[in-house]
């Protein structure tokens, strides 16, 4: 994972689409622009949809790590 300063972390394992995106969006609302959120999501559909939804909202995924246990960790920079 990057050495960016993470302002907030959310664990969304077991949370289904679209709630995982909704909760990520809500968590990002608490951050200032250009701050970083770390979100852990399940493998599968989430990884094909959450990043795209975040992109539409103006946020930016800067790193994706496969945790090799059925989950992925996303590092997200809050957009404007």
């Amino acid at each position, binding site marked *: 994972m990057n050495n960016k300063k993470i302002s907030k972390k959310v664990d969304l394992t077991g949370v289904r689409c679209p709630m995982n995106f909704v909760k990520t969006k809500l968590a990002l609302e608490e951050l200032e622009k250009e701050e970083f959120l770390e979100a852990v999501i399940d493998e599968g559909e989430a*990884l094909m949809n959450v*990043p795209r939804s975040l992109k539409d909202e103006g946020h930016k995924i800067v*790193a*994706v790590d496969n945790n090799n246990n059925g989950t992925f960790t996303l590092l997200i920079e809050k957009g404007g």
Partner: protein
Amino acid sequence: MNDAKNKDANNANQDTEHVFDIAEYKKVGFIQQKQKDYFAMRLHAVGGDFTAPQLMAIAEVAYTYGKGQVHLSTRQGVEIHYVHYSKLEAAQEKLAAVGITMGACGPRVRIVSACPGSSTCRWGTIDTKEMARYLDEKYFRSDTPHKFKMAVTGCPHNCAKASENDIGIMGGILPEWSSEDCIDCNLCVNACPTLAIHKEENKKESQYLLDEEKCINCSICTKNCPTDAWKEGRAGYIIWIGGTMGKKPRIATRLTGVIEDKEEVYRLVDRTIEYYRAHGRKKERFGHTIERIGEEKVRKEILYGTE
């Protein structure tokens, strides 16, 4: 006894008492029920689209001439059941007044099904409705060795089930990567549903490479890439042939990769239908024709043959 009126010049009018030319009726979408005096009216549709006034007219016809029962078919069609043979003509006229014509049954081209495509869906790569209309206008109800079904779907999510149809057209893209926009986030490597993207580690700068054999042209990489380092290089149409359900289901064979030229797609569709007409046996679905003759032989003949 009512005549089965239709626009097909080859169809003679029937004038029998309780004896129906079932094959001719099927041709124009009148399907005899188990209750032999009653017919299901199979209506024509393109990509499953109707207007509200049309649906209201269908409901009214079902009440007036049927038993108020409407059935939605698996390929986006509509049927009015329980119409007595004496009422078929009148029902047909009421439907024609709102621009609804009859569908088809039997060994011929059926109605074309389609997903919304680029008109309203964010994943839609192609204008599915325009293509569905073209195919319908050119081929609907024309004779084939056995029933022939076509579908147009906007992307590899395949909502209109292109790979279950005799001919399926599917929108798709071929992604391209550019290093200058890439921020090495590794999303593409992880998000690709077929793991077709991998990172080349042994270079000064990372490189992300696509295995085109594994790529299913779905655009998940290009749509999710945070910096658009993955972009749509080519966008167009993928042709699938020989899909079928029924007693012996078969998933279609991919005839082509992504073709950009719509006219080329139409040319290959025409060659495919002509091939089936020339080589398919009666009651043999196109997919089973392909199995019998051999997938590669059929592909080559359609793509490069001189017949």
